[in-house]
């Protein structure tokens, strides 16, 4: 009999609970926002509880491989769950109005289920299903209550998601054809070589880079993230793009042999640098606040690709990857929520005209400041931890150019974040509306940004968690 703390129950609950909440939102449509919010918080509690079951795995309903659904919780998976869950919980609390839109609550809980299934997924096909669930629910969320521009952005987002998923599925089919198994560990132990390895890796990588919005495949991201409701943008940029890059990391670390990653590393490094420059410059020039934040996501995703480019030779690169992902998720979601409030208080979102929304927006302004610092990698934030780790490990591996590159990229980020800092200090025009906003939203944003700050102090436990798994 599984006890309360057995991995079986906890891991299954991480997928089943949000799905049950999805049913709940359909059965009780009037309570749907409350159900979705409660489920988001329960999910956070479950993730915290799951810390004790790291290393466990389970097969849903007792069906084993190859037809059953296997869930596996290692340190890496827990870290990704641990930064996603607070984003969902706090964003849900900050965006009750959005969740009250028709269907939003249902899609929200479905999204959580899909995200958890990906992070826990132990076999390649279940990851495909997870990717599709996430992609479809995220696409539908971006289209909620939106006009033609948002619908067009959502449609493009859907096509990118579908194309990426199908490229990935092609890779899965090829791997199954070559090995007869879908379990990541078993595939790795079979040791594919030559075209049988290269072809699926190429297909899957292309698909995942597309879904992950890594430049030059980022064209769809700013319109999709920039037109959605703030909490949807928050979830999209914080978690959804990370799911694709998480699968990419798993594929190259756990399935492909290390020599293959070493061979492909220059590609990831080049793409990462490209993304950092392209996203940073676009963010510097962006007129609208949400476009600025969305392009900043493009730049930040470049850091993940860069870290992946060092994962073969620098053991700390995985830590840097996780730290970049977590810091960006927490900071960016806080920034999206706070920016939404500030734009609403200003009555527009043109960066050069934005002004101080007033004393009532203290928490939101603090969230912008802290999140901006975390994204720029200022100490002592999580972004700093990530950069420091990557720079030190890359230097140890002989790549001395990484430290100055990361520092320069941080300056670029600081330059566009300074545009927001300037806006927060600008005196509002005389006729500015005296805005008041629910205090909960500002504090939610501040909580997310503060978590990104706190992450900077958790480098040693983070390294220990990922050490156990590697």
């Amino acid at each position, binding site marked *: 009999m599984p006890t309360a703390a057995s991995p079986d129950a906890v891991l299954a609950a991480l997928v089943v609970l949000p799905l049950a909440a999805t049913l709940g939102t359909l059965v009780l449509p009037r309570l749907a926002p409350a159900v979705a919010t409660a489920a988001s918080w329960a999910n956070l509690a479950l993730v915290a509880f799951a810390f004790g079951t790291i290393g466990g795995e389970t097969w849903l309903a007792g069906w084993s491989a190859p037809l059953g659904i296997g869930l596996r919780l290692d340190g890496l998976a827990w870290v990704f769950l641990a930064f996603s869950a607070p984003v969902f919980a706090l964003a849900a609390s900050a965006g009750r109005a959005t969740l009250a839109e028709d269907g939003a609550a249902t899609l929200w809980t479905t999204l959580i289920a899909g995200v958890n299934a990906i992070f826990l997924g132990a076999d390649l096909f279940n990851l495909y299903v997870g990717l599709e669930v996430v992609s479809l629910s995220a696409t539908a969320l971006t289209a909620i209550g939106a006009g033609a521009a948002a619908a067009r952005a959502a449609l493009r987002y859907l096509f990118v998601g579908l194309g990426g998923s199908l490229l990935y599925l092609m890779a899965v089919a090829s791997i199954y054809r070559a090995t007869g198994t879908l379990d990541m560990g078993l595939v790795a132990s079979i040791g594919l070589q030559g075209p049988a390895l290269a072809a699926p890796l190429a297909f899957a990588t292309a698909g995942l880079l597309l879904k992950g919005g890594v430049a030059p495949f980022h064209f769809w991201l700013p319109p999709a993230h920039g037109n959605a409701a703030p909490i949807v943008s928050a979830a999209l940029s914080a978690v959804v793009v990370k799911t694709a890059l998480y699968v990419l990391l798993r594929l190259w670390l756990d399935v492909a042999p290390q020599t293959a990653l070493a061979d492909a590393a220059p590609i990831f490094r080049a793409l990462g640098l490209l993304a950092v420059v392209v996203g940073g410059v676009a963010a510097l020039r962006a007129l609208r606040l949400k476009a600025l934040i969305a392009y900043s996501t493009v730049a930040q995703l470049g850091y993940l690709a860069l870290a992946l480019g060092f994962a073969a030779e620098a053991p*700390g690169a995985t*830590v840097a990857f996780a730290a970049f992902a977590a810091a960006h998720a927490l900071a960016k979601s806080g920034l999206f929520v706070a920016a939404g409030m500030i734009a609403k208080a200003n009555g527009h979102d043109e960066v050069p005209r934005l002004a*101080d929304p007033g*004393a009532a927006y*203290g928490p939101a302004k603090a969230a912008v*400041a802290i999140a901006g*610092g975390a994204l720029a990698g*200022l*100490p*002592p934030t999580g972004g700093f*931890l990530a950069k*420091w*780790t990557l*720079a*030190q490990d890359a*230097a*140890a591996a002989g790549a*001395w150019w990484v*430290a*100055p590159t990361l*520092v*320069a990229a*941080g*300056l670029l980020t*600081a*330059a566009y974040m*300074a545009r927001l*800092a*300037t806006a927060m*200090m*600008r*005196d509002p025009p005389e006729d500015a509306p005296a805005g008041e906003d629910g205090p909960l939203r500002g504090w939610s944003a501040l909580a997310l940004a503060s978590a990104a700050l706190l992450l*900077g*102090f958790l*480098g*040693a436990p983070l*390294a220990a968690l990922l050490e156990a798994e590697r």
Partner: protein
Amino acid sequence: MSLAWLPLAIVATTLVSGVVIFLTPDRMVRTRAALNLLGAVATLGLVGLLVLGVSQGGSYSTRMPFLPGAPLVLQSDALSLLFVGLSAVLWLVTTLYAVGYLRHGAHRPRFFGFFAFCVSATMGVALAGNLLTFLVFYEMLTISTYPLVTHRGDAASLRAGRIYLAYTLGGGAMLLLGTMLLYALHGSGEFVVGGLLSLAETRPGDGALTLVFAVLIAGVGVKAALVPLHGWLPVAMVAPAPVSALLHAVAVVKAGAFGIVRIVYDIFGQTLAETLHLLPPLSAVAAATILWGSIRALGQNDLKRRLAYSTVSQVSYIALGVSLAHPVAALGGIIHLVHQGIMKITLFFCAGAIAETTGIKKISDMDGLGARMPWTMSAFTVAAVGMIGLPPTVGFVTKWHLSSGALESGQAWVMVLMLVSSGFNAAYFLPIIRRVWFADPPADALPRPKGLEASPLLFGPPAVTAGLTVLAALFAESRLSPLGWAEALVLLEFGFAFGETP
């Protein structure tokens, strides 16, 4: 009694003060002033405790886990005490002044909140026990001073803020790069008396350490306003007077100068720095800065801008003293950390009091102001005499040590530099003093008010700090004077035997 938490408590007290002040509504003026003073007095008390403990041979260090293999360390040594003591005293004085200055301003919770954060960052810079900790607080200082520089929120302030951020974030980036490289090369960045790096680590022809030195100095050089990295300082003049006072005397430029001292003495060490020939270029930059700042100061009619260029010049005495590789000159440089602070804060207090009371900002409008504001102008005069370097002020003590150190080590050009610099100082301060005391006030000048010349909170603080510039010089021989501390410190660095550590 174990007081290992004391350095952390000092940083935390100021930080918590800032948070509490942020949460105090704008209208609760008295409550906020009280909280502010409470924070400043509590900090001063803790610093007093620290000074007392260290003078009895104690040594305090707080370590916190931070990055893997690189902890945050706050600790007390003689050098940090000098800076911490200066900051604690001047924070209290400046708080009083700022309460008087901002009696009718908007956004006061924000102002005083960031003010406290700024002091917290300065305390952290002072107490940092390794380069990483120094970097953390150095960046925090940048962030927390930005809202102070742009406090007025108008177009000129925002422009100044952008320039300020561009320089200081750029400097922070250089410092970050240098720190990353140092940790990658050496594995740690502890501040060690005599230098962390040893000669054994340098290989002939290996320029890596020289490069690290250059990058680090460029990083701290921005805040220390070394030419050509000084451009932000005159621009940041748009800030309210208490901010300028703090920026110029305690927080920002001083953090940069302090960083130079730390990097030369506690990372590279006197011996290694000489072996790698790192110091002559630093001397050259410092000398150029001293001259250039003075030359530019001459041409300014705006009082605060003239003071700003004067800061550019004066702060480089610290870098110069450190770079001369002689104990007496080093003493002159390190002691100037304190001396420049109390003199310059006096001058900015006075400039603010004048502008706030009479609206006068230009030197050409200051004719006869001595009769109108005798207390303020007396304080100004004392501090200006100190800047010129005349006895019996602390400015003289600085210049005396710098010059005699340079002479003893055979660098006579420094003596010439000191004379030229003092000449410049006189050239841009004496005309102000002449105008104020001996020129007739213009016909349309406001009559002297009955009662006090200004709010006591505006002319009291500069009177106190002006008094300190004389007292610290008169009692320079005392072991408890700033000079006494600095002497002990320099002896440690240069390895002389000495009887009793402070």
